[in-house]
Structure formats: structure tokens, C-alpha cells
């Protein structure tokens, strides 16, 4: 007889999941992440080409946090504009409750902290272990996408999680130099995110039309 209430709870859970899935339905979030990863790949590519121990290289290295923070804010802004232009007129606008945003921020902080700590430990341990930095990043990004895939029941995120781990490990094993390894990992993941995002966007645009309120 608990079915009545189970159904209500289930309905609340499903609505929550559908609302969260909606954010990823158009593929724009993956496209934006793909662009960010491409910028990071270019950064590491330039770093690898600059001569070691040069002042230029040290100065250029300081750009990474600016690139990441600026990129996240800029692409978030760009993603919102794209959603306003293509998604909201088709399937509607939603604003999520701040509580969800806080939990996402906490998750990002934990993931970022764990990544920073692991990379820091690797740096400190030995210069040879720096070659494993792409693998560590691949595993952490893969873990994050695996968590999202489970929570949102989005099959393509399982694929991205697996790709991230494989590409991270492959970049470490096949390319010894850390900067080239990072450039390869971020470049390959950028292509994966852009491919997945553009494919999702194509499917989304094919199945939806701009609906105006009557």
C-alpha cells in the first residue's frame, strides 16, 4: 500500500533528474568544455615549444590559472547566450535552484582540490613521475563524468568517462614529456567533447522546433 507514496517520491526524483538532464540535452555544455580543453591544449603546446629555463616560459606558465578561470566564466557566459538563442525558444527556459549550484560548486572544488593535490604530489615525488600527470587528469576527469553519467543516467557520459581515462593513460605511456602529454590529452579530449556535443546538438535541433507561446 506504500505504492501511492512511492509513486509520489519516484515522480519527484524523476522530475529532478529530468530537470538536470535538460541542461545537457542540447550538447552546448560539452561544446563549451571542448573549447576550454582546446585552449588548455594550445597552452601546453606552446609551453612545450618554449625553451626550458627561459623567462618567457616562466611568465607564460602564469597564464594557466587566468586561462582556466577566465575560460570557465567566458564559456559559461557564451553557453548561456547560445541556450537563449537556440534552446529556450525550442524546449523552454528553466532556472535551477541555488542549492543545486552549491552542491555542484562543492563537487568542482573537491575534484579540483584532488587533482591539484595529486599533481602536486607527483611533482614533488620525482621529475620522472610528471609523465603520469595526463593519466591522473584523465582518471579524475573520467571519474567526474562517470559520476555525472550515473547521477543523470546519460549514456554518452559513460563513453566520455572511459575515453578520458584511456586518453590520459595513453598520453602518459606514449608521450614521455609532460607538456606534450598534457597537450595531447587535452587536445584529444577537446575533440571528444566537441564531437559528442556537436552530435548531441544536431540530434537536438533535428527533433525540436522553435515553439512560440500561444
Amino acid at each position, binding site marked *: 500500500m506504500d505504492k501511492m507514496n512511492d509513486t509520489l517520491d519516484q*515522480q519527484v526524483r524523476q522530475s529532478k533528474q529530468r530537470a538536470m538532464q535538460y541542461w545537457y540535452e542540447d550538447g552546448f555544455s560539452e561544446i563549451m568544455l571542448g573549447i576550454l580543453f582546446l585552449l588548455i591544449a594550445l597552452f601546453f603546446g606552446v609551453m612545450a615549444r618554449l625553451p626550458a629555463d627561459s623567462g618567457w616560459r616562466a611568465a607564460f606558465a602564469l597564464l594557466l590559472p587566468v586561462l582556466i578561470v577566465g575560460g570557465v566564466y567566458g564559456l559559461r557566459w557564451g553557453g548561456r547566450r547560445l541556450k537563449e538563442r537556440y534552446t529556450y525558444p525550442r524546449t523552454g527556459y528553466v532556472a535551477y535552484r541555488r542549492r543545486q549550484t552549491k552542491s555542484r560548486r562543492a563537487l568542482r572544488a573537491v575534484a579540483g582540490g584532488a587533482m591539484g593535490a595529486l599533481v602536486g604530489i607527483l611533482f614533488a615525488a620525482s621529475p620522472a613521475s610528471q609523465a603520469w600527470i595526463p593519466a591522473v587528469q584523465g582518471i579524475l576527469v573520467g571519474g567526474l563524468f562517470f559520476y555525472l553519467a550515473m547521477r543523470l543516467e546519460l549514456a554518452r557520459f559513460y563513453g566520455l568517462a572511459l575515453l578520458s581515462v584511456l586518453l590520459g593513460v595513453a598520453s602518459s605511456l606514449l608521450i614521455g614529456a609532460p607538456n606534450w602529454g598534457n597537450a595531447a590529452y587535452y587536445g584529444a579530449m577537446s575533440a571528444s567533447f566537441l564531437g559528442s556535443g556537436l552530435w548531441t546538438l544536431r540530434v537536438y535541433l533535428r527533433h525540436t522546433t522553435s515553439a512560440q507561446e500561444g
Partner: protein
Amino acid sequence: MTKPPHSIIDVDRVIHEPARLLLLTVLLLLEEADFTYLLRETGLTKGNLSSHLSKLEAAGYVEIEKTYKGKVPLTLCRITEAGRTAFEQYRRTLDAFVSSLPTEKTVGED
């Protein structure tokens, strides 16, 4: 002796209607949503959705803001604090009713 299941009579009839219950469930988890999103999520017709939203608004459970985005009309809906409280109360009433019912086993024993 178990409490008679008359508590179900006290259930909020504004919320008890399936379409309105679904609407509140969707809005409960969001800051706000527009008419197009609610149409898609509930599968209701425009007229039905409009009518149910009006009833929820009249009960003070939902706030509706009619505005324009460029030349396109935009209807934003959000659940009010009274709506959240009423939904929780509805859930509790339903809970109490379900747990007051005799189970198949106890009916068999009688």
C-alpha cells in the same frame, strides 16, 4: 486500534488533481520555468496548462510573471513558499493515510 483513514478527506484538493500535482512537482525543484518547458514536461495542452496554472496561482501556490523576450511573450512560473508548504503538507497527509490503512495480513487475521 488504528486511526480511521478519514484524514484523506482533509487532503488539499487543489494539489490532489494529477496535472496540478505534476506541475508542482516539476516547479518544486526549480527556481523558475517558462510555459514552454512546463508544456513539454507535463504533456498537457496549452489550454489545460494555462487553466491549471491559473488555479494554482489563485490558491497562492504559484507565481506567474508575464513578460516579453523581444517580441515573443514569455510566461515565467515559480512555486511560492505557500506552495512548498502545501506540497509538504499534502505529502504528509498522504503518508498518514497510507500508513493508517490495514495491511493485507491484518485484514486476513480479522
